[in-house]
Structure formats: C-alpha cells, structure tokens
C-alpha cells in the first residue's frame, strides 16, 4: 500500500511540475507534503510506511554511483575552467557546513537541528547515504534539503543578476553547490554550460561534504550523537 501510494503521488506531482514548471511545484516537495498529510490524517503507522518503502530508498545506492557518470559526462564542457569550478565548489560547501549550523545555534536550535541544517546543500541522495556516518538524522535533513533547493532555485538567479554575475560556469557552479538537483533543474534553463557546471557541482559537493563534514563538525563541537 505505502509503496503504491508513494509511486502514484510522486507521478501526480511530477505531472503537476510539467504542467506548471516552477521550483515551488518541485515533485519531491509536493509528494512529501501530500504523503505527510495522508499519513498524518489516516493514522497509517509511520514505522510500517518506512518498512514498506525501503526498496525505493535502496535505489539511492546505485543512483549515487550513477552520479559519477554525470560528472564524467560533463567534464568535457568544464575543461579549462576546472580551477574556478573547484574554487566555487569548495567555498560554497565550506560556507554551508560552517555558517548554517552556527547561525542555527545562535538562534537557539539544538545540535540535532544544527547538524541537519549543515548538510542542507548536498543532494538528498548523498545525504541519506552519509547521515548515519555523520551522526545526522536523515529524516530531519531531507525536508530541509528540499527547502534549500527550492529557495536557491527561486532566489538564486535573481540575486546573481543583482551581483552582475553573468558567467554561466559561475552561475551553474553556485546553483549546483547551494541547491543540488533542484538548482540544477533551474540551471538547465540557463543553457548547457550552466547545466554541466551545476550537475557536476551537485555530484562533487556530495564528495566534498563527505570529506569535510567530519573535521568541521569536530571543530564546531558537533561530533558524535
């Protein structure tokens, strides 16, 4: 039941996205919202929902491997621009890992939330995979990640216009680093170079986050738990 309901609702959300293409009609966001409402109102046990949908979640493992193919496919377009791409990727990922939990802490959020917010810019596929290693709660992180994607895709291009940044490589790198797949869908509208930079940034940001999160968490006193 849970598996079929998830599939059908996702398909409906995907149709809605095709009809009204906008970051707010993101199919994952719509589907999560609809299913949360459905589970909450019908009283379907959450434990049972989790168990019955495990086969879907398992597909994330080969899908993350497949991101290596995405990065490989886009490498040609990034040739000669590798340095600015890597600089943007590293600066963006570090900013997200350090600044977001500190701001949340300053506003009184507990460590569990600070950690989930720290990985808000990584693609959910990688986040679900990494969460247990980092002591992050994946179920808490995924909705925050979706929201970060929607915010970046909606406001990002506007802010970058204000900053007079017109270089498609820089714009794509920024969208992919800050807003993963949802930002990449937005970057696709800006042309092939922005799409390539964004897709590669999304794959690589997962890798960089995996490597940098442990030392950053240790530095911020967020390790363990």
């Amino acid at each position: 039941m849970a598996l079929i309901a998830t599939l059908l609702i996702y398909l409906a959300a995907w149709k809605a996205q095709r009809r009204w293409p906008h970051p707010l009609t993101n199919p994952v966001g719509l589907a999560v919202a609809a299913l949360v409402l459905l589970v909450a109102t019908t009283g379907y046990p959450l434990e049972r929902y989790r168990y019955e949908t495990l086969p879907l979640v398992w597909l994330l493992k080969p899908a993350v491997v497949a991101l290596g193919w995405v990065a490989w496919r886009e490498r040609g377009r990034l040739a000669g621009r590798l340095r600015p791409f890597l600089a943007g990727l590293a600066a963006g990922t570090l900013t997200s890992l350090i600044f977001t939990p500190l701001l949340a802490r300053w506003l009184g959020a507990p460590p569990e939330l600070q950690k989930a917010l720290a990985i808000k810019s990584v693609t959910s596929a990688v986040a679900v995979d990494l969460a247990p290693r980092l002591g992050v709660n994946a179920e808490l992180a995924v909705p925050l990640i979706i929201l970060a994607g929607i915010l970046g895709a909606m406001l990002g291009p506007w802010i970058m216009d204000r900053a007079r940044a017109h270089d498609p490589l820089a714009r794509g790198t920024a969208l992919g680093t800050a807003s993963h797949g949802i930002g990449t869908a937005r970057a696709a509208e800006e042309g092939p170079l922005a799409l390539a930079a964004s897709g590669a940034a999304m794959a690589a940001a997962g890798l960089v986050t995996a490597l940098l999160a442990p030392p950053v968490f240790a530095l911020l006193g967020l390790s363990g738990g």
Partner: protein
Amino acid sequence: MNALLGFAWLLTFYALGEVLARLLPTVPLSGSLWGMVLLYAALSKGLLDESKVEAAARPLLRGLGLYFVPVGVGVLAYADLLRAHAPAVAAALLLGTLLTLLAALGAARWR
C-alpha cells in the same frame, strides 16, 4: 539488454565501493560515494563501455527524486522539534542557502 548490463555495472561498482569503504575506514566515504569515484575513474580510463552505463544511469537518475520521498515523509516524527524552532530553521535555511550560493559564485569568478 544494455540497460540491464549497465545496471549490473552500477551494482558492481557499488559493491566494490563497499569493499573499499571497509578496507579504508579512516576515509569518511560511504560505499556508494566510493562507487561514484571508482565509476568516474573507470570511465576516464576507458575501461567501461559508456553507452551501457548511460543506458542504466539515465533512467535510474530520472527517478532520483522518488527514492528519497519516503525518507522525507519520516519528518513527521520530528514535527514538534521543527515547530519549536521554526524561526531559527527558516532563517538558517534562507541565509545559509543564499550565502552558500554567493560564496560559490564569488569563488568561481576568481581565476
């Protein structure tokens, strides 16, 4: 058939990644992230038929969003925690995302 073969390759690289993750516990990479790195390396060295990988990777990634929907639904268990800290979460999300974006943008313009 190509899609099936490609999927078998993806699973093989995932399995290799799991082995590496166990052999190198000091490197904080999961099995699937190691698999991603290994797949990239194998494609770069021309060890794999790219068209077979593509035949599986393309349809698999088209459904990427679907696979983590169930994890997102699990947030229901943390509704109280999020409600209690809604302003902090909203501010951290908004400012954090925009600063991440601007930091990446600024650094990517530098050459």
